[in-house]
């Protein structure tokens, strides 16, 4: 190895090739999941060029993947000191701040990014979600409206707007928003789950079961099984309620609510159990509907429909 005299060493500039090779190796290691290797190569890049924003961004991603959120925050902040206009930097910093619950700072990060890039959909959506988390639902809705003005077909923005409206007590507005989201993306889990919560709030057990079933076909979640169990109980379907609580407990064995629900379902079964047969719409009777007119369990359905 050649040792450069101190004066020359000060003037020495690292080879661009070496720097790029180190970065490339770090990215490859990160893609492979070799976080230690990625960090080692990234260190080399930072040593060669300490003011290299891409290397600091990469370091932030490595730390985030490794669960070292404070380290990630520091790395993204360093990248932003070098290049304050990096969207990747601001989004990385904001999501790291979100991970440790520092919402006001997260919102500030989105604001800074939106000053630079006022049309960044990601920033608007994430800012809305952060405002939702701190309870500023009107602020969140304003953010989603910004997104929808730019991209009216943005299903997550509709779903999030519905969730904020639901929190504000505007059930009809929320229902409209979820309808829009599901029209645009019929398999959108979040919109279906939000709809389940809306139906549950309105005590529409039939619809709660219907939408919970649809959402569970996309993705399982213990809380969804629990809500479904409760709705079955509301419809008098003890066996189906038991099955739902059991599934919820299988996914989350520590759930006290599910355990209590299962107990209630077992007790209800002693008194009676409704059988819905092939009618997945049980509990959603609509007068004048041709499907309802020919229904074999019409009388019972009418009784449990609000």
């Amino acid at each position: 190895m050649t040792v450069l005299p101190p004066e020359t060493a000060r003037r020495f500039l690292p080879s661009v090739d070496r720097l790029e090779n180190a970065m490339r190796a770090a990215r490859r290691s990160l893609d492979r999941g070799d976080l230690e290797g990625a960090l080692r190569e990234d260190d080399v890049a930072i040593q060669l060029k300490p003011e290299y924003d891409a290397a600091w961004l990469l370091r932030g991603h490595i730390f985030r993947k490794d669960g070292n959120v404070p380290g990630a925050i520091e790395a993204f902040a360093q990248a932003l000191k070098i290049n304050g206009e990096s969207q990747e930097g601001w989004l990385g910093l904001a999501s790291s701040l979100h991970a440790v619950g520092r919402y006001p700072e997260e919102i500030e990060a989105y604001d800074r990014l939106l000053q630079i890039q006022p049309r960044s959909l990601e920033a608007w959506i994430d800012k809305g979600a952060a405002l939702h988390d701190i309870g500023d639902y009107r602020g969140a809705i304003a953010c989603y409206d910004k997104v929808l003005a730019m991209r009216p077909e943005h299903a997550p923005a509709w779903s999030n707007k519905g969730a904020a409206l639901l929190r504000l007590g505007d059930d009809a507005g929320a229902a409209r928003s979820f309808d829009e989201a599901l029209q645009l993306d019929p398999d959108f889990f979040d919109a279906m789950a939000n709809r389940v919560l809306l139906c549950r709030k309105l005590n529409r057990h039939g619809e709660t079961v219907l939408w919970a079933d649809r959402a569970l076909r996309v993705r399982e979640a213990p809380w969804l099984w629990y809500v479904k169990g409760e709705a079955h109980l509301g419809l008098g379907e003890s066996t189906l309620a038991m099955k739902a609580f059991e599934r919820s407990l299988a996914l989350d064995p520590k759930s006290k609510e599910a355990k209590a629900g299962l107990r209630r379902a077992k007790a209800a079964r002693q008194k009676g159990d409704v059988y819905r047969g092939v009618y997945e719409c049980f509990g959603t009777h609509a007068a004048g509907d041709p499907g309802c007119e020919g229904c074999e369990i019409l009388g019972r359905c009418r009784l449990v429909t609000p």
Partner: protein
Amino acid sequence: MSLPSLAEVEHADWTSLQRMCENLGLNPKGRSAVVRMRVADFVRRRGQPPTWRPAKAHQAALLTRIGHPDLAERLWESTMQLDAPGPWAGLGHAQLAGGFLAEAAKSFSRAAQMGEPGAELHRAEALAAGGNFAGAAAACDVHLASQPRDLRGILMKVSFLTRAGFEDEAAKVLRSAIDLHPEAPELARSLGLALLRSDHHEAAADALHAATQRDSKDASAAAVRGAALLLAGRTREAIGVLREALELDPERADALNNLGVAYLAMGQTKPAAVSLERAAKRFESPRIILNLGKVLEAANRKTEAAGAYEQVLRLRPKDSEGRAGRKRLAPSGKAKRSRKASAKSAKKTTLSRRTRSKSTPPKTAAPETAGT
């Protein structure tokens, strides 16, 4: 059975929905909205998924093409990945289309560093768009260092060198390209054009001869060869070659014009006028009509010549040669004397214009050739 479309499901009445359920083997019982949802879910899951869905990168590329480079730029930025050069190249194109030439060159440079094979050529285009032809040629050199046989890179380098004024250098590059790609006849034609532009008429004629030997149906090469021979003073040969070119493509206005000029140089005003009239019919260019005016004037068809000059002035009102021609042929007493006096000079100018008009055909032929 074939699946109904989602629109059909959406708008089907109850009876049709029942029929659909029956045909698809679905449960037909329940509230109509739920049955409709059931059928729609089935159709969506069973229906052929779209074979292609535009990704962000596709949308960005499309936005650049349809004239929204600012939106494309934003979209490209959102597709940036840690190790993919493609978005950098796309971003460069959007910046180029938006007029941000320096930024575009930087983006292409970044794509090239990440291993995008054609990025240096794109950078060359960005530099050339900013008028830096020497830099563009240097970028082509970088590209050719890794892909020395790349014909596109060679032709782009030739074009940039020519535009930078290094015509001899361009001819050299073309000569070496012909050795590398003997199968590409357009290279010989491009070399001929480059030599013609740098006033090496004999050499140009030879190169174009080689091009026509490689591709005997190349009317463009034959027409430019005719012009080169004419400029080299080999008028008789030029006439033969131009006639051959016109046999291949009788509609070539440049070849007809040059043939007219060649006939005039041989003192044959009648066939010269016929050729130029045919050329003017095919392409109403002031240069061709001026040549026609001069030939008609030389053939003593003064009314027709005056008409030709008028036509030139309609197309280009300030054309000095057109104005001079009209003045010469003006029917006043004084003008008569001056016309007599100017008849000799007219002859002289006709000859001098003949020489000048010879430079026109290569200009007409230039856009048709590869690499220019």
